[in-house]
């Protein structure tokens, strides 16, 4: 545990930044979960609420940007404080992008039919749950400065890739059975891809948390699962 800064207001500003990021993280987590639920349950009523919460996340992002600018100008942070400041900037960018992807997924609910078969949604649900767990774990690793946990998340992105592949395959199977499924299947494919991208942002956050804690970037390229050709 570090001592406190001699300048109290510096200490408060850094704490305020960390608090803002934690709040932004928890908002992003709820939004990702809500968007996932909306897709699985084809719940068209929640779309507006999810879109609205994305605005909140974006506001947090600009608030955090301002806090970081002020810290850089006023304090010229060094060492752990510098890493904390720069990491907050990077993590808030990744969270904002995850928010955008959740919003995009919520929008995909509109054209979906209400009677989607379970086997089609099962893999997507599993993927969504895994991505949710990854986000939860990475935020937890940030709050508790847990290097091993962050690295675990980083490694586990391989499973996100694999599940994305499986979920994509089930949608493509379904699509190939009947051409009239084409329209909404395309939306499901995008929704699946969005989850995989959210997984990538979570991996970025994991890398940032590792850097924040140890001051070094993780060595080597991260493990990759099966990848759908783009």
């Amino acid at each position, binding site marked *: 545990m*570090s*001592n406190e800064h001699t300048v109290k207001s*510096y200490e408060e500003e850094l704490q305020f930044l960390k608090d803002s990021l934690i709040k932004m993280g928890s908002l992003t987590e709820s939004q990702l979960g809500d968007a996932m639920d909306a897709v699985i349950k084809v719940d068209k009523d929640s779309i507006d609420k999810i879109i609205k919460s994305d605005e909140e996340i974006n506001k947090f992002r600009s608030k955090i940007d301002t806090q970081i600018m002020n810290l850089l100008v006023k304090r010229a942070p*060094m*060492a752990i404080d510098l890493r904390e400041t720069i990491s907050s900037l990077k993590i808030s960018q990744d969270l904002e992008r995850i928010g955008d992807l959740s919003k995009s997924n919520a929008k995909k609910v509109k054209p979906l039919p209400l009677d989607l078969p379970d086997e089609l949604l099962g893999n997507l649900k599993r993927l969504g749950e895994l991505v949710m767990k990854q986000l939860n774990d990475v935020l937890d690793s940030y709050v508790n400065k847990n290097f091993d946990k962050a690295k675990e998340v980083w490694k586990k992105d391989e499973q996100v890739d694999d599940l994305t592949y499986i979920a994509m395959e089930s949608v493509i199977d379904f699509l190939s059975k009947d051409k009239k499924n084409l329209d909404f299947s395309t939306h499901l494919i995008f929704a699946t891809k969005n989850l995989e991208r959210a997984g990538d942002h979570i991996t970025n956050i994991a890398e940032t948390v590792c850097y924040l804690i140890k001051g070094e970037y993780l060595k080597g390229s991260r493990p990759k699962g099966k990848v759908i050709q783009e």
Partner: protein
Amino acid sequence: MSNVKIKSKNLNVYYGDKQALFDVNLDLNEKEVTALIGPSGCGKSTFIRCINRMNDVIDICKVTGNIEMDGMNINDKDLDVVSLRERVGMVFQKPNPFPKSIYDNISYGPKIHGKGETKSELDQIVENSLKKSALWEEVKDRLDEPGTSLSGGQQQRLCIARAISVNPEVILMDEPCSALDPIATAKIEELIDELKKTYTIVIVTHSMAQAVRVSQKTGFFHLGKLIEVGKTEKIFKNPDNKMTQDYITGRFG
């Protein structure tokens, strides 16, 4: 890999009963800038004063251990201190030009060291030194004016010109910018960048930002001990020692 210009091994300094430096082991690389940081009274100035034997002027000061320049023992009792100081120049916190003309400020050193025997040789040394210290353009038409008539920043560059006029190998700078405004500071920092191509530079500074900007290596002193030394980038981004981290992040109570 840079060559080591100055090497201190188990260097201890005492002022009477009070020990000011404890077993300092520090290598200064040739043609590099090494910054020394640490709270007031931590020994960083005492350390650089060992390099040109400035501590000799303090009667109660005793130095033990080893300090070498290019393998030569600086502490050797038989060493000619004047020629050592010809090789190791120094610039202080407050600009301290001689109460003489700008020209005489620069030519004094070479004269007493027997360099520049003719007027034209001296003229050349004065011009070169002032050019190297980025002051020539500002003073070339007023070389006979007193050095003290210059602004603070110009006076400090004059002192740097004076230090390099005898063609030293090492320049010690003890908080050279602490009395200067940001523009004059920027000019000195720009100059340090240029000078390091020719000279080995050691700078004591209280400004972390300055240490980051000008140096390649940084040493952190605390209570007479060298706590940590390493690449400047590493020290300010991710120091190994908690005391270093506490000091540079402003957590020293």
